[in-house]
C-alpha cells in the first residue's frame, strides 16, 4: 500500500495527502492507496501547486505506518530526529 507525501511549501513541514484531497500532518490520517491508484493520485497533484513541494510516494502498512526499505527514513520524517525527541511531530503528538 502507498501514501503520498510532500513538504508543505510555506514552512517545509512533512505532510500527507488525506482522503479528502487536503494535506494532513499525520500519516495515520493519510489516504492509503493501492499502487496504481497512488500513481494516479501523485500525477494529478499538478506541478505548480502552491501548497507543497517535492511530492512522492511512500510504502505504508494498512494501519498507516511506514513499511518497506525506506521505513526508517519515513518513520523519522513522520516523527522527528531520533536524537531530539523534543523536536518534530513526536514532540507535539504526545
Amino acid at each position, binding site marked *: 500500500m502507498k501514501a503520498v507525501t510532500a513538504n508543505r511549501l510555506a514552512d517545509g*513541514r512533512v505532510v500527507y495527502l488525506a482522503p479528502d484531497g487536503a494535506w494532513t500532518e499525520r500519516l495515520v490520517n493519510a489516504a492509503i492507496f493501492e499502487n496504481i491508484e497512488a500513481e494516479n493520485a501523485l500525477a494529478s497533484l499538478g506541478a505548480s501547486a502552491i501548497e507543497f513541494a517535492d511530492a512522492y510516494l511512500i510504502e505504508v502498512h494498512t494501519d498507516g505506518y511506514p513499511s518497506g526499505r525506506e521505513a526508517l527514513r519515513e518513520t523519522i520524517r513522520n516523527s522527528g530526529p531520533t*536524537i531530539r525527541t523534543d523536536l518534530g511531530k513526536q514532540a507535539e503528538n504526545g
Partner: protein
Amino acid sequence: MYRYDEFDAAIVYDRVKQFRGQVERRLSGELSEDEFKPLRLMNGLYLQLHAYMLRVAIPYGTLSSKQLRKLAHIARKYDKGYAHFTTRQNVQYNWPALVDVPDILDGLSTVEMHAIQTSGNCIRNVTSDQYAGATAEEIEDPRPWCEIIRQWSTLHPEFSFLPRKFKIAVTASDHDRAAVRVHDIGLRLHKSLTGEVGFEVIVGGGLGRTPIIGPTIREFLPKKHLLSYLEAILRVYNLYGRRDNKYKARIKILVNAEGVDRFREQVEQEWALIKGSDLDLPVCEIDRIRVYFSPPVFERLPHESASLKESIQSDDGFARWVRVNTAAHKQPGYAIVNISLKPIGGVPGDATDAQMEAAADLAERYSFDEIRVTHEQNLCLPHVKKDNLFAVWTTLKQHDLATANIGLVSDIIACPGLDYCTLANTRSIPIAQRISERFADFDVQENLGEIKVKISGCINACGHHHVGHIGILGVDKKGEEFYQVTLGGSAAEDACLGDIVGRGLSSGEVVDAVERLVDFYRGERNDGERFLDAYRRLGPGPFKEALYANA
C-alpha cells in the same frame, strides 16, 4: 576582520531583495517548484527530511561576536533554539520556514553575512586554519588570501555553472588543520629555498564516492600570481570537466583521467595567456586587504602567567581543560582556546542560542571580538590572555561548553545523517553519541591521546570518514543500518585514506567493535605512540582481527 565595502554590501542587499521577490512569486504560484528550486539553492536553502535547511556561509570560519549573536538570535526567533556547525566551517539551521527566510537573510546582511554560494556548482565558501593569525607555526596569516579568493570567486560569471561544486582551502602552517589535500584546490603557504613565500598548489583531492588525496601540481607559486593561476585551473576544469555524469564531474576525476602531468600542462598553457594580466592583484590591493587582518593590539606580557599556574594547581578539571583544549599562541602570555561542541553524549556541532551568545560574550570580552569555527565542528577563541583562561573556563563550564576533549576519541565529527539529511543511508549522530558515552571517562580519553573518529551517513562523506583514524560509513542493507569501518586515514599534513577492513557491522555491533580497536591499540602501543602511528606500524591485519574479534 574583513569589513564589507560598498560592493559587498550592495551585492548582498540586492540578492536578499531579489530572493524575497522569488519567494513571493513561488508562494503565489507564479513560479513552479522546478523553477524555484535552483533559485532557493542559490541562496543556500535546501529541503531536508523534516523541513527546509538554510546554510549560512562563514567565510574562512571567522566570526565577530556581533555576527555570532545574530546567528543565536536567528536560532531563537526563526528556528528551534539551536544551530549546527558543519565540517565546511558553515552553520546550518534545520527548521526555518520558507516565508521567514527573506527576513533571516535580511538579518544576516546587517552583520555582513549571507548564504550565497553555499550550494550549487560554483566555488563554495573558502575554508582555512582556525588558528590563522594566532599560531606561531604559521608563515603568515592565510586569511587575506582567503578573502582575495572570496572576492574573486563571488558571483564570478564564468564559474557560476561549473561541472560540479568546487571547494578551496588555504593553510599557512606545517600542521594542516584545514585538510588541504582533500579539497578541489588546496593551497599551502610555505617558504622556498630562497626564503620567498608562495603557494604549494594541490588540485583534485576530495572525499565522497571517489576519495582521492590531492596531488601537488605546482610546488611553488609566487603569491602575486595566485588569482591568474586559480583562474587557469578553473578554466581547464570548466572546459574539460565532465558534465554528463554527476559522479564523474568533480575536478579530481578530470585530474585522474588526464594524469597529473597532462593536467598541469593544460593549466600552464592556459596560465601563459593570462599570467601577469590584471587578474593578478597589484601589491597595493593585496596590502589593502591584509590591513583588515592586522593582528590585534596585544599586551606585552611574560610567557608564563602566575595566576594561571595557581588555578591549574588548585583545580584538576581546569588543569585538564588547559592541557587538552588550549594551544600555543604566537604572542607571549596568550593562548588559543578551543571550545568543544562535543559534550559527552551530545550532538556533534550543535550549539544552542544561549551557548552561542555565551561564546560571543567571551569573545568580546577576552578574545578581541573574534570567534572561529573549525572544520572539526568546534569553536575557537583565537586570542585569550593566559591570565583570563580561568575566567573563560568558568563561564564555558556554566554553559556546558568546557568539555576537555579536543582531538580525543569523543571529539567526533559526525554528519547530520538520517536524523536530518534526505540523502542519508543511515543515522550518524547516535553512533557518535554512543561512542562518546563509551569513552566518557576523561582520564581514559586523555590517556588514549589523539584518535580521530569521523562518521558519515552516506557515501557523500560530509563526515570525512575516509580520513578518520577510525572512519565509519553508514550503509543501507535491505533497509537496515550497517556501518563500514575504515582505519588509518588522516586529513592532516600526513593525509591518507583509510583502509576498508571488512564487512559492515550492525548498529548494535559497531560501538563494541570500536572499543575493541581502541583496547587493542592501548595494549600494543609504544610510549607516546598515537593510534594512527600504531596502526601504520602494525598494519591493518591485527586491527582487523580486533575489530571482528567477537563477531
